């Protein structure tokens, strides 16, 4: 019988952050690998167009690494990252609006290429309507809704990341759901 190989401990986000601050580039790369997809999903859900998604993900990570000194562990690194992503997206909207153009998010039904075409179309239609509804929500309601419904976070975590109270986050979510239900009916 061969002895069981020791399981390599997966470094925590905090350990990777400390390693990066100590000059370890690979720690930064690992943080990107770990959270990039969740961030992309959040940004796409919040209305980031496909063409801008990669740039926005990169920009969010750059902003996060620059501001790591301000991260006090009030919430998880990923939650903090998502809120930075939300701000980066808001800045992109502002920049585009100043330039006179308009960002039109591409519906997922137009992008997805796998699965039954009819099911894909129906599912895609609901997603597009939800995305349109999200665009009409105030910034805070949209972020709270996505953090809760898409990312599955608790109100305490959401409140800590957005600098509000769990009660206020719950109210924002309630208002968002009330308005969005109409969209997916």
């Amino acid at each position, binding site marked *: 019988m061969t002895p069981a190989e020791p399981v390599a401990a997966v470094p925590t986000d905090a350990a990777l952050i400390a390693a990066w601050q100590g000059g370890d*580039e690979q720690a*930064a*790369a*690992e943080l*990107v*690998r770990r959270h*990039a*997809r*969740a961030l*992309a*999903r*959040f*940004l*796409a*859900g*919040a209305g*980031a167009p*496909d063409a801008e*998604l*990669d740039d926005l*993900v*990169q920009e969010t*990570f*750059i902003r996060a*690494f*620059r*501001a790591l*000194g*301000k991260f006090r562990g009030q919430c998880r690194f990923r939650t903090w990252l998502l809120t930075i992503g939300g701000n980066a997206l808001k800045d992109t909207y502002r920049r585009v609006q100043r330039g006179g153009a308009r960002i039109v998010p591409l519906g*997922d039904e137009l*992008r*997805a290429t796998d699965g039954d075409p009819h099911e894909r179309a129906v*599912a895609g239609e*609901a*997603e597009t309507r*939800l*995305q349109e509804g999200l665009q009409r929500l105030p910034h805070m309601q949209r972020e709270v*809704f*996505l953090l809760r*419904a*898409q990312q*599955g976070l608790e109100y305490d975590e959401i409140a800590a990341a957005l600098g509000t109270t769990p009660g206020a986050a719950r109210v924002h979510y309630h208002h968002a*759901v009330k308005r*969005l*239900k109409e969209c*997916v*009916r």
Partner: protein
Amino acid sequence: MNQDEQLQDAKLQEVARRLGAAAAARLDVERTARAVVTRLRQEPRGTVLSWVAMRPPWLKIAAVLVLALGAGLMARGAWRGPMPRAAAVVPLEDDLSGLTAEQLREAINSMDQVPADEGAGDADWGGGGLSAAELRALLRALEG
């Protein structure tokens, strides 16, 4: 909550969970990681901008005030025109070499008119090293 509302809630939850998944799946995570690391490598840590960004607002305001004050003082200096530095910088010998006996006499007279409490009698003339007495001796030598 009736059954209809529950269904609607469930549907909303389901759609929300799916939202953006297809776009995220297309992201090339490895490429993104490489790009982020490259960008981080290109910008030195602790740049002035990041330093400014991390300071509390009151410190930023103080820094702006100090900069404005400094700029104001410089502008004020420029407005008043350049300082009369020539007398201090130009060697006295050079000044004297071009003077006639008459001009030297005028200079000595003007020095003699300076009030006594300023110690003009044998004081240095503009820091050049020659006193009024030495100038008088120079004048005598010029006059023969």
